[in-house]
């Protein structure tokens, strides 16, 4: 619940009051000022020690919250009284729950792990000289978490970084504004971050600012548990990690020792165990190595979690979609803010991301000298991902003039490399003003980032991401499709485009019914050298869906009509026949099919002629591959026929199947009778040998089967063309009702039960061609050969209003024996109507069988986002001519002054002096 509130700090005169919103999201209480950036806090309810309703003037409803650290905040609830009462009640309940859970007691132990406590409790801070070292040594003995830097030194010269002054400023701030779990973020918090966090505090502040602190707080011990549970486990990720351990900030002393390496290994492995789907991506090693300098393994682990999960979403995913998306966003921002540079890049065909991709992926850590990169990282954790874009734009703007000279990618990269190497230099070396000369290029960069690109807001980034998401997804899909098709060992007789269509169907099936995660082979079994992601394989259920996309008999399509609308419901068919096909295609016998299996399998049936198809069908049903069908298998064959023909119009097919049965058993018995006891098994592939059958199980060989099949005209035509034609790759017909006569078009009323096939078979054996049902739902036949025989009128008569809205529950079978069923032409009239009705009908006829697929398709149609096109005018105006930066010394000076001022507000005079010093401080490599 949220409520309007005015926040005041409980200390007189320390901070102004801010209006904003107070959020109760148990177990946290959060506040955000109206501008969403000035003042913010998130505190666990367990750190609230006391809540008091303040006795104030009438009409004012204020609470005083005493926090763990002794600080006190006053929130004035400015919503209506009942709302405020409700809020208080909820707050009380939430606090009670926390108390019962014993969370209040955990705070004390937890904050001991935070360096800020040491800092604040040190009531007599060391004189502001650089006595940091001594201070550090005694401090490190206490139990707070710290990084490798405590042992191996932090990068940079503490003196030049003004460590002591920074520590002092922070100590003051943390004393009055809470710390770690209860940190209240007022404007000067952000400013202090902008001048660079002090090394000792950096790790903890990253945690606090990014929120990973709360994850660590609420999941105590999880990190150790993960490592313990997975001891000795090796995965592709752990192997990849192993390769990169010695390549992560190798110049840092900590990573030349086993201590640093093993810490890095544990953190990266723990994360890969926690998030196996992401696993490990190069560049994570650099991030992890960087943050481990400043924080403990557990802290780093949780920060990594926040980084990968929230701050850099999708950056390190196997598809790296987040990276690609943000590169696209960045490019569009460049186009918008720095159009001249963008145009030049277009003109000379330079791709921005050759340089900018590593910036984003490794947070500048392997692009810039570390001390500078860490300052950007400070801002990143404090202000969010927009910082990366702001800094990126500023880099381009500052180098604008030179960028307009470059001619190719290589020149671009070299220029950037030189620029980053010179960040410590004076930005205005020739200026007469010593203050101007003292400004480093890095300071200039930050100024430009935050001053000139303040238009880049979180909201803008989010909306831009939304805008390009589909584009990126499409391009990733296209790319993976292309590679998947390219990597097929054999295309069979398919063209690349056709294989692409098979891929589409497979992909769609995997979206609806994702392959189980167990699909990743057990990591312990992975052989060395299995670097690539394991081949995607689908299980039976996904296969059924896939087949429903590809084969007309693989789906149950019903054209449902009631008085108001017509629509197509589609269900995935299930039948033993499909299972049989699945295992038939599973040539490697692993219970799952790969893309290659599917392509090869389809290749085996889609291009066949009559004889090949008969043989294919025979082999499919010859379970033990001995070249003979048993009697049971003959029955199965007829079941398969019935399954495929289940929606055909008229009784022609039933008759055909019945004749097949009769003939098969007749011939079979005859041969059986004639034949001597040939034990020799005849290969099914040898067509011309209708040899006598062995007496017992093997019953019908291919030649006999072929003879039986060819004895029937309908079956012959089925094998000649219809079977192959029943596989359709064209996606259009998959998704929508085809416009008109594409051979699919007979329609047939029937009831719905998915296992109707079995019953059909029973019915068939019982009484052939008997039942006439009144049906409300049209089943689209898989073959539809006989549609032309029928007369339109017949169907019209069937479409009585009473039938239209009756439901599919009817138990009547669809057996097409009725002479009154002559549906083909009506079907045509139906099909013409249906598409429009699909589009218009938003409320599904609930009475009729619910079809998730159509629903999904409709939903997909509806949710296809209208692209929000941001009006970019404002930004355009803000974008100044970027080539003249260097001429603006004076301007920059002004900005620096402003920057300095900004940092000092709210601090004491003495502190202001320090802050001023800080701003001129030179970061050192």
């Amino acid at each position, binding site marked *: 619940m949220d409520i309007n509130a005015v926040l005041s700090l409980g200390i007189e005169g320390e901070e102004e009051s801010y209006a904003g919103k107070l959020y109760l999201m148990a177990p946290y209480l959060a506040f955000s000022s109206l501008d969403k950036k000035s003042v913010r806090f998130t505190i666990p309810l367990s750190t609230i020690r006391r809540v008091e309703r303040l006795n104030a003037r009438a009409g004012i409803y204020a609470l005083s919250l005493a926090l763990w650290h002794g600080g006190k905040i006053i929130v004035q609830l400015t919503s209506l009284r009942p709302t405020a009462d409700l809020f208080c009640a909820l707050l009380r309940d939430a606090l009670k729950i926390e108390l019962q859970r014993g969370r209040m007691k955990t705070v004390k132990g937890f904050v001991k792990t935070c360096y800020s406590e040491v800092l604040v409790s040190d009531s007599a801070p060391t004189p502001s000289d650089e006595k940091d070292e001594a201070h550090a040594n005694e401090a490190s003995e206490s139990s707070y978490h710290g990084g490798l830097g405590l042992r191996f030194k932090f990068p940079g010269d503490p003196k030049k970084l003004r460590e002591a002054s920074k520590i002092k400023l922070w100590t003051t701030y943390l004393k009055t504004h809470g710390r770690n779990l209860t940190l209240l973020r007022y404007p000067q918090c952000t400013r202090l971050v902008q001048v660079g966090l002090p090394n000792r505090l950096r790790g903890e502040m990253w945690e606090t600012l990014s929120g990973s602190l709360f994850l660590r707080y609420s999941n105590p011990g999880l990190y150790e548990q993960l490592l313990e549970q997975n001891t000795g486990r090796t995965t592709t990720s752990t192997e990849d990690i*192993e390769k990169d351990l010695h390549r992560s900030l190798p110049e840092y002393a900590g990573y030349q020792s086993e201590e640093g390496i093993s810490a890095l290994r544990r953190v990266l492995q723990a994360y890969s165990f926690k998030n196996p789907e992401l696993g490990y991506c190069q560049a994570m090693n650099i991030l992890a190595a960087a943050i481990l300098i400043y924080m403990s393994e557990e802290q780093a682990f949780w920060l990594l979690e926040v980084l990968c999960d929230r701050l850099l979403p999708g950056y390190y995913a196997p598809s790296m979609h987040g990276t690609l998306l943000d590169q696209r966003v960045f490019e569009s921002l460049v186009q918008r803010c720095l159009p001249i540079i963008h145009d030049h890049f277009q003109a000379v065909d330079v791709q921005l991301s*050759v340089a900018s991709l590593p910036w984003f*992926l490794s947070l500048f850590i392997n692009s810039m000298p570390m001390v500078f990169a860490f300052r950007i990282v400070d801002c990143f954790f404090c202000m969010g991902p927009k910082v990366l874009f702001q800094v990126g734009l500023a880099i381009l703007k500052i180098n604008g003039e030179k960028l307009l000279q470059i001619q190719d990618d290589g020149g671009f990269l070299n220029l950037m490399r030189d620029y980053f190497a010179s960040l410590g230099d004076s930005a205005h070396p020739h200026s007469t003003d010593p203050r101007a000369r003292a400004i480093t290029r890095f300071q200039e960069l930050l100024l430009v980032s935050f001053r000139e690109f303040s238009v880049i807001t979180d909201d803008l980034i989010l909306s831009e991401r939304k805008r390009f998401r589909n584009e990126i997804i499409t391009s990733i899909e296209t790319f993976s499709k292309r590679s998947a098709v390219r990597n097929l060992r054999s295309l069979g007789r398919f063209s690349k485009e056709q294989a692409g269509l098979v891929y589409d169907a497979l992909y769609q099936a995997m979206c609806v019914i994702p392959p189980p995660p167990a699909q990743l082979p057990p990591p312990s079994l992975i052989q060395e050298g299995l670097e690539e992601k394991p081949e995607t394989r689908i299980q039976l259920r996904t296969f059924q869906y896939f087949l429903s996309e590809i084969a007309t008999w693989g789906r149950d399509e019903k054209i449902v009509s009631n008085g108001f609308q017509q629509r197509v419901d589609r269900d995935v068919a299930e039948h033993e026949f499909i299972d049989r096909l699945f295992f038939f295609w599973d040539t490697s016998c692993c219970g799952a099919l790969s893309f290659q299996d599917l392509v090869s399998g389809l290749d085996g049936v889609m291009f066949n002629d009559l004889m090949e198809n008969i043989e294919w069908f025979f082999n499919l049903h010859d379970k033990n591959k001995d070249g003979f069908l048993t009697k049971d298998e003959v029955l199965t064959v007829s079941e398969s026929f019935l399954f495929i023909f289940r929606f055909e119009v008229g009784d022609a097919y039933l008759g055909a199947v019945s004749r097949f049965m009769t003939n098969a058993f007749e011939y079979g018995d005859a041969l059986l009778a004639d034949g001597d006891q040939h034990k020799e098994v005849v290969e099914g592939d040898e067509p011309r040998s209708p040899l006598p059958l062995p007496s017992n199980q093997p019953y019908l060989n291919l030649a006999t089967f072929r003879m039986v099949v060819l004895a029937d005209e309908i079956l012959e035509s089925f094998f000649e063309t219809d079977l192959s034609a029943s596989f359709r790759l064209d996606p259009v017909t998959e998704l929508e009702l085809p416009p008109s006569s594409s051979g699919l078009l007979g329609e047939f009323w029937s009831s719905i039960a998915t296992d109707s096939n079995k019953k059909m078979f029973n019915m068939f054996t019982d009484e052939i061609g008997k039942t006439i049902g009144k049906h409300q739902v049209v089943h689209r036949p898989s073959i539809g050969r006989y549609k032309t025989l029928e007369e339109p009128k017949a169907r019209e008569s069937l479409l009585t209003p009473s039938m239209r809205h009756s439901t599919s529950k009817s138990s009547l079978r669809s057996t097409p024996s009725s002479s009154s069923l002559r549906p083909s032409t009506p079907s045509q009239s139906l099909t013409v109507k249906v598409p429009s009705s699909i589009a218009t009908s938003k409320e599904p006829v609930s009475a009729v069988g619910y079809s998730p697929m159509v629903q999904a398709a409709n939903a997909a149609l509806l949710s296809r986002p209208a692209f929000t096109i941001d009006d970019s005018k404002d930004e355009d105006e803000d974008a100044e001519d970027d080539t003249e930066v260097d001429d603006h010394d004076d301007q920059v000076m002004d900005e620096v002054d402003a920057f300095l001022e900004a940092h000092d507000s709210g601090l004491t005079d003495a502190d202001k002096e320090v802050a001023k010093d800080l701003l001129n401080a030179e970061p050192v490599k």
Partner: protein
Amino acid sequence: MADAASGSTDKSVQVKLVLLGEAAVGKSSVVLRFVSDEFQPNKEPTIGAAFLTQKCRLEDRVLRYEIWDTAGQERFHSLAPMYYRNAQAAVVVYDITKAASLEKAKSWVKELQRQANPNIVIALAGNKLDLVQPSSSSSGNASSESEDEADDATATPGEAPSPGGESDSLRQVPREEAQAYATEAGLLFFETSAKTGEGIVEIFTEIAKKIPIEHILAATRGGGVGRPGAAGGRPGNAQDAAVNLEENANKPKDACNC
């Protein structure tokens, strides 16, 4: 490094070359050997791609290779087109001690042939030859160790090559097999060792010969032919300032007949 400055040299012909291959086959070491004739222990992994340049002299002209050394990890694959677009040459590297890496190389070749510049010159390089040549190092241990330095990616623990005695059994890809594939696919083929330097310069020499230089020149600035001597200005490695390809250029091919 120093080569960055020489970008303006007009007399050289720029050739964009991309290195592709599975992770840990030694792409970076191959480039490093070629560009600076050295090993660099513990190089940071390639994020996206690294960019290096090197000049080569071939007969009377100077080629300036712009080399894009790409990241090998599978998930960086989708970024690769960014680097191989417009490339005139590619070196696809595999590890002769790892059969799977040749498969990956083949898929790279396929991709290049379909997606990249149609005239791209592709060379297939089977790296880590030193691991199967006991003679080239006194002991297998030494060999594995220095390979470790050559390219850290190589030094996958647990995969470390066993001592020299059985070193030949480490080979998983017979030379003939790879050669046959390369011939069939129309690739230049080499077995190399970034550690010993064997075969490295040859790759780039042969590529240089095969590249339709006239084409490039015509496309860029209308036929100016580079002169030797333009290669002078590289500090860094004095003796190797520009790799002189001439001695290898005994039988110049179509590209070099000016």
